[in-house]
């Protein structure tokens, strides 16, 4: 049984730079396509949405989701950084779709550290941007001069560790669930392969997937809030 990442193609950009088209990329494109279709449906549907009438159906669900997420973001990161809400909403939506796509037998993109680290790195850029934009002196002082300047290397390591820890937490959880389910499929008798994995998919893909998406997003938002001082 091989859990390794499959390579479908190699794109040679230069002699030294080659981009591998792996199943991570393919499943990412599938997730992108699903999200794009969903977003287009919402966009088309939104043309008939009337703010003066009581919302129902898809409008109700989307309004509730966006409103709840915005309140969550403002509650943890403050109002000053509210313009970053769409980015983190997209991150949360992308992670949910990426984590639970394993239910239909596609390898989750987040089971590859090559996917989780860029996402964590983008969050790292966001909370550093938030800190430098909202209170640059205090933010830099907090890293380099607190409690005293000799702690600066430790503080720097702490800051760098944030995206690494976040990326490994998500990667490990999703990969662990995927490996466990693959092992169950491998060792379970044929009769049980239609019953037992269903419950495990519910936990490892759906529950754990949603939970990890929420944890990753909440940590990113909390770091933004800490950095911006709100």
């Amino acid at each position, binding site marked *: 049984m*091989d*859990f*390794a*990442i*499959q*390579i479908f193609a*190699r794109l040679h950009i230069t002699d030294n*730079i*080659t*981009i*591998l088209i*792996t199943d*991570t*990329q393919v499943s*990412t*494109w599938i*997730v*992108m396509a699903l*999200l*794009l279709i*969903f*977003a*287009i449906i*919402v*966009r088309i549907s*939104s043309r008939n*949405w009337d*703010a*003066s009438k009581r*919302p129902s159906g898809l*409008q109700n669900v*989307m*309004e509730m*989701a*966006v*409103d709840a997420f*915005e309140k969550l973001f403002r509650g943890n990161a403050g109002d000053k950084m509210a313009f970053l*809400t*769409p*980015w983190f*909403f*997209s*991150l949360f*939506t*992308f992670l949910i779709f990426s984590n639970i796509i394993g239910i239909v037998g596609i390898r989750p*993109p987040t089971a590859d*550290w*090559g*996917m989780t*680290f*860029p*996402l964590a*790195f*983008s969050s790292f850029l966001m909370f550093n941007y938030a800190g430098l934009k909202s209170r640059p002196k205090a933010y830099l002082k907090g890293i380099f001069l607190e409690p005293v300047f000799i702690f600066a290397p430790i503080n720097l390591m702490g800051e760098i560790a944030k995206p690494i820890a976040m990326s490994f937490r998500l*990667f490990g959880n999703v*990969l662990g669930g995927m490996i466990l389910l693959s092992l169950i499929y491998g060792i379970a008798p044929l009769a049980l392969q239609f019953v037992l994995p269903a419950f495990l998919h519910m936990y490892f893909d759906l529950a754990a997937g949603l939970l990890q998406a929420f944890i990753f997003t909440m940590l990113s938002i909390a770091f933004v809030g800490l950095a911006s001082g709100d």
Partner: protein
Amino acid sequence: MEWYRSLFALDADTFIGMIPNLFSFIVVAGFLTYLLYNPVRRVLKARADRIEGDLSSAEDSKLSAAQLKAKYEQKVSEIEQERVSILDEARKQAGERRTQILDEAKSEAQDVKERAARDIATEREQIKSAVVEAIVDISTDMAARLISTSIDKNAHDKLFAEAMEELEATTAFRADTVTA
């Protein structure tokens, strides 16, 4: 050529592979923001603005109603003051009129009384004069009769009695006239 990669490796392929992954997510974020988040946010904002407008309008109406109420209360207060003032003035005028009517009535009654007293006194004087005249007439008549005829004692008494009856009748007639 290898067609599988290990689950985790810190090599060039991994880090180069991160670039399209990050780019993919940026594209997804752009799509989701433009196609999904912004339209929903726009509807939410429109609803929030409408509710805020309704609340503001209701607040304005409430303020306007409060001002109108204060204005009406002031008018009612002014009308009440005016009513009290008019009533006081009317009472005052009625009192003055009453006093005036009473004074006039008293004066008129006094006049009537005085006039009646004067009339009574005049009538009394007239009766007195009439009685005196009657007495004088009768006496003269008696004296004339006495002188013209010789009368005996019985005739004398009879003559005297007739004179007295005439006198009484004249006096009674005068008294009835005065009383009437």
